[in-house]
C-alpha cells in the first residue's frame, strides 16, 4: 500500500511539473475541443521585438546538408553552402554561368602560359592575400593536401572524380603556384579541378593533417561538422541538426567584410510549409519554388521570383535503334523529317503556358544558359500544317482510321516518361496534338526508381522500351561535355552502363565530341559546341519540351542577390538587406 501512495504522489508531482510550462503554451491553442483552455495567454514577447538589430538573412532549405567537408558530400545544398564558409576554389562561376578567377589570380590560358602547349599541364597563380580565418595563409600546399586526402584509401570520400582517372600529379611549385599534371589533355579542368563547383575545394591542411595522422582517416574529423576555420565571406558558427545553420560575417574576407551580419539557414523539409514561411516573411530566400505556388507568391509584392539555369532541360529523346532486338525503335523515327514533323505538331509554348504558368519556354539548345550555347540556332516552330506535309512527303499517309501508315506499319509511338504529374499532363496534351496530324500514341509511365536504371539493370528506357521518351537532363554542368550522344556509349551486353539510350551513332557528331574533349582552350571549344548544337538541331536528335531552371524567391528587402547556376551564393559578400 505504501508503494501505491508513493507512485501516486510521483505521478502528481510529474504532472504538475509538466503542466507549469505547458499552460503557458497551450492556453491560446485553437483546438476546437478545448473549452477548458480559456485563461488569457501570458502575452509572450512578440517575436519581432529585438534589442540590437543584426542584418540577418534567413534562407529556407528543403533538405539538410549531410556533411560540411566537401569530400564527403555531393548534395546540392551542401555545395551551395560552401560558397559561404569555404569558398576557396581556384575558380568560381558568376550569374552568367561563366568561370571567373577566384583564388587563382587569372584563368590559365595558352596565351598567359597557364596551359602548356601539349595541354597536359595547368599552372595556377594563387592570390597571396588570402588567409584562413585563424590567420594561417592559404597556400598551394592546402590544394596538394586535398588531392592526397581524396586519393587516400583511408578516407571514404564521396567521389575521386576526376583525380583518379585524369590527374597524374598535383604539386606546389612555390606557396602560390599550383601545378596540375594530367595523363591526357583534360578539358573540364575549369569546373572539376579545385573549383567552387566540384566537391574539390581545398581543405585547411594545418587543421586536418594532424587529425589524419592521429585517427588514420578524415571520416570522423570534427571539422567535417564544425568547419570553424574557413576562407569564405561568412564563417561557420553553429549547426543544430534538423533545425538550422548559422554563418557570421568574416571581418577579414579578402574582398572586404560582407554587408550582412549573419546568414541563417533554416531547414524546412515540407514544400507547403516553406511557401507559408515565405508568405509570412519568415524566409528571405527560398529555393526550388514550384510553378503552382508562383502566382500566389508574386501577388504578395514582397518578393521577386528569380530563375537560374543549372543546366537541366526537360527533353524528348527519340529511340533510333535499328537493332534486331528489344531495343528497336519505331522505323518512322529513322527519318529526320519525321522527327521534325513530330516536333512541329506540338505547341510546346502552349504546354509551358498551361502547365508551367508561362514562366519557362522550350530551350533551344542543350547548352542554353551557358557560354557554350549557339546563338544562331532557330527553334522548331509549331506548325501542324507543315507537319502533315512533311509526313505525307515521307510516305506516311493517313489510313482509314485516321492514323498514318506506311507499308502496313501504323504510325503509333510509345511515349514514355516518369509518373510525375506535370509529365503525365504533358503526355495527355501531346497525345491530342499528335492525333490532330494522324499520329497514334501509347502512353507509358514508370516510377522514378526504375525509370533511370541502366541497360545492365534492365531499365525500361535504357533497354529501348520507348519511341519517344521524356525526362529532364543536363550536360556535365557547368562543363558542357556529355556522354549522351557518343557512339561508344551505346548500351549493349558488353557495355551495360552505356549512356546513349537513343542507340544511334552519328560519325560527324562523334568526331566533334572527341575533338572538344581535348580542346583545352576554351574559345576553340565553344566553337566546337556551336557545331555540335547545329547538327543536333538540323537532324532533330534532341528537343527540349521546356527549359528547367531552378527557381528562387528573394525578398525585396535584399539587394545584389545574383545567383549562379553552378555556385549559387558566389557573390554573398555583396548581398545587403534594407528594412
Amino acid at each position, binding site marked *: 500500500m505504501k508503494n501505491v501512495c508513493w*507512485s501516486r504522489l510521483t505521478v502528481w508531482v510529474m*504532472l504538475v511539473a*509538466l*503542466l507549469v*510550462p*505547458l499552460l*503557458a*503554451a*497551450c492556453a*491560446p*491553442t485553437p*483546438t*476546437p*475541443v*478545448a473549452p*477548458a483552455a480559456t485563461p488569457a495567454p501570458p502575452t*509572450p*514577447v*512578440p*517575436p519581432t521585438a529585438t534589442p540590437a*538589430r*543584426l542584418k*540577418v538573412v534567413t534562407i529556407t532549405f528543403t*533538405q*539538410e546538408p*549531410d*556533411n560540411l567537408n566537401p569530400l564527403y*558530400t*555531393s*548534395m*546540392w545544398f551542401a555545395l551551395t553552402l560552401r560558397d559561404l564558409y569555404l569558398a576557396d576554389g581556384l575558380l568560381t562561376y558568376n550569374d552568367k554561368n561563366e568561370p571567373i578567377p577566384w583564388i587563382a589570380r587569372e584563368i590559365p590560358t595558352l596565351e598567359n602560359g597557364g596551359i602548356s602547349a601539349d595541354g597536359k599541364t595547368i599552372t595556377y597563380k594563387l592570390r597571396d592575400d588570402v588567409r584562413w580565418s585563424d590567420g594561417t595563409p592559404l597556400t598551394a600546399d592546402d590544394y596538394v593536401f586535398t588531392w592526397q586526402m581524396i586519393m587516400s*584509401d*583511408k578516407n*571514404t570520400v*564521396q*567521389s*575521386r*572524380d576526376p583525380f583518379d*582517372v585524369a590527374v597524374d600529379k598535383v604539386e606546389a611549385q612555390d606557396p602560390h603556384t599550383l601545378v596540375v599534371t594530367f595523363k591526357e589533355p583534360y578539358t573540364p579542368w575549369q569546373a572539376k579541378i579545385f573549383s567552387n563547383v566540384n566537391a574539390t575545394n581545398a581543405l585547411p591542411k594545418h587543421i586536418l593533417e594532424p587529425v589524419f595522422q592521429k585517427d588514420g582517416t578524415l*571520416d*570522423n574529423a570534427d571539422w*567535417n561538422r564544425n568547419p570553424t576555420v574557413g576562407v569564405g565571406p561568412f564563417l561557420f558558427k553553429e549547426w*543544430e*541538426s*534538423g*533545425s*538550422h545553420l*548559422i554563418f557570421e560575417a568574416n571581418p577579414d574576407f579578402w574582398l572586404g567584410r560582407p554587408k550582412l551580419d549573419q546568414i541563417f539557414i*533554416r*531547414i*524546412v*523539409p*515540407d514544400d*507547403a*510549409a516553406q511557401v*507559408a*514561411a515565405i508568405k*509570412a516573411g*519568415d524566409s528571405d530566400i527560398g529555393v526550388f519554388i514550384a510553378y503552382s505556388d508562383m502566382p500566389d507568391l508574386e501577388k504578395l509584392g514582397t518578393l521577386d521570383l528569380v530563375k537560374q539555369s543549372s543546366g537541366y532541360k526537360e527533353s524528348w529523346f527519340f529511340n533510333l535503334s535499328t537493332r534486331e532486338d528489344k531495343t528497336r525503335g519505331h522505323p518512322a523515327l529513322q527519318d529526320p523529317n519525321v522527327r521534325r514533323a513530330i516536333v512541329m505538331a506540338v505547341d510546346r509554348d502552349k504546354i509551358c503556358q498551361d502547365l508551367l504558368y508561362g514562366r519557362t519556354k522550350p530551350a533551344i539548345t542543350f547548352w542554353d544558359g551557358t557560354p557554350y550555347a549557339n546563338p544562331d540556332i532557330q527553334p522548331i516552330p509549331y506548325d501542324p500544317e507543315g507537319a502533315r506535309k512533311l509526313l505525307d512527303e515521307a510516305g506516311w499517309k493517313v489510313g482509314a482510321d485516321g492514323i498514318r501508315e506506311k507499308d502496313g506499319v501504323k504510325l503509333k509511338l510509345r511515349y514514355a516518361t516518369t509518373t510525375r504529374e506535370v509529365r503525365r499532363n504533358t503526355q495527355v496534351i501531346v497525345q491530342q496534338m499528335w492525333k490532330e496530324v494522324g499520329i497514334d500514341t501509347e502512353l507509358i509511365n514508370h516510377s522514378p526508381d526504375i525509370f533511370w536504371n541502366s541497360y545492365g539493370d534492365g531499365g525500361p528506357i535504357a533497354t529501348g522500351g520507348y519511341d519517344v521518351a521524356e525526362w529532364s537532363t543536363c550536360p556535365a554542368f557547368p562543363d558542357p561535355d556529355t556522354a549522351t550522344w557518343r557512339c561508344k556509349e551505346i548500351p549493349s551486353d558488353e557495355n551495360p*552502363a552505356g549512356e546513349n539510350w537513343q542507340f544511334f551513332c552519328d560519325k560527324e557528331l562523334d568526331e566533334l565530341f572527341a575533338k572538344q574533349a581535348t580542346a583545352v582552350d576554351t574559345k576553340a571549344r565553344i566553337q566546337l559546341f556551336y557545331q555540335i548544337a547545329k547538327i543536333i538541331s538540323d537532324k532533330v536528335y534532341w528537343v527540349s519540351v521546356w527549359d528547367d531552371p531552378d527557381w528562387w524567391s528573394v525578398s525585396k528587402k535584399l539587394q545584389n542577390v545574383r545567383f549562379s547556376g553552378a555556385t549559387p551564393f558566389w557573390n554573398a559578400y555583396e548581398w545587403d538587406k534594407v528594412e
Partner: protein
Amino acid sequence: MTRYIIRRLLQAIPLLLLISLILFVLMEEMGDPLATFGGRRVLRSEDRIRLTRQLGLDKPIWVQYVVWLAGNDWMKIDLDGDGLSESYGTRRGVLRGDFGMSFVTRRPVIDMIAERLPNTLLLMLTSEVVILVLSLLIGVTSALKQYSVYDHAVTAFSFIGYSMPIPLLAIGLMYLFAVNFKRWGLPYFPTVGIFDPAVGRTVPQVIWHMVLPVAALSTISIAAYGRYIRASMLEVINQDYIRTARAKGLRERTILYRHALKNAALPLVTLVGLDLPMLLGGAIVTEGIFAWPGMGRLFIDHTVRSDFPVLMGILMMISVAVVIFQIITDITYTWLDPRIHYD
C-alpha cells in the same frame, strides 16, 4: 514482483535479438545507400565499387549483421581494394554500445539520435500531457452529462477532429494563425522552426514556436481518447458498486475519481502504454511541416537515403522502449486493479 520484472527483462533479450535480425534483413531490401551518393548525378562506377568496399557493403548480409552486432575490430578488412585484408576494422558493435556510423553524415548514430531526442521529447511529451488532460476532462464531463447539448457538441467536434488529416490540420493552423493573423495585424504565431534567429534560442521563444505543432499533434488524439474515456466512464458509472458507493453516502467527487475513473482508466492505460514508446519516434508529418528538429525528421531523412545504421539505431531504440513500457503498463494494471496479480 521483482522476480516478475527480472523474468520479463530476460525474456526480452532473445526477442530483441530476433527483432534486430528481422529489421536488418528488411533494411537490406529497402534500397541502395549509394544510390544518392552522386547528388544530382549518378555515382560513377569507380566510386561505387570503392565505396561499396570501404563501407563494407560488399560483404554477405550475415557478415554485415555480425559486424553491426559485434563490431569488426577483431577481424581484418580490405581498405585499398587489392583483395588482401590488411588492417583491423574500427567498429565495436551494438553489443558493446557502438551503434555504428551513418553512411550519410559519417557520424556516430548514437550522437545523431542524442541530438534529436530531447527536441522530440519536449514536443511529444507536451502533446501527450495536453492530450491526457483535455481528453480526460472532455471524456468525463460528457459522460456525466450524457445526451446534453454539451455532450452532443463535444461528439460533433470529436468526429470532426478525429477525421482531420494531420497535414491538412497542420498547414491550416499555420495559414490561419501564422500567415493570415500576421497579415491582418493580429498577434500571430511563427510558421516554422524552434526559435527566431533575430531573438535567439530562449525559453519563451521555444514555447511560442511549440504552440502550433502541439495543437496539430493533440487535436486528433484528444478527439479519439475523449471518446474512449466517455464510453468506459458510461459503462462504469452504471455499475452496482457505484450505486453502493452512493448508498454509503460517499461524496460525489470521491465516487467519481476514486471509484469510477480509476476503473474506467484501464483501457486508457493500455492505449497510453502503447503510445509512449512511439513518442520516441517523433511525429514524421508534424515535425516535417513545422520544421521541428526531431526524431521523425531524422527517420524520414535517412529512410530516403537508405541509411540503415541510423534507421536500425532508431528502430532498436523504439523496440527496447516498447518492451520496457509494456512491463510498466502491466505493473500499472496491478495498481489500478488490485485483482490483478503476477506472482
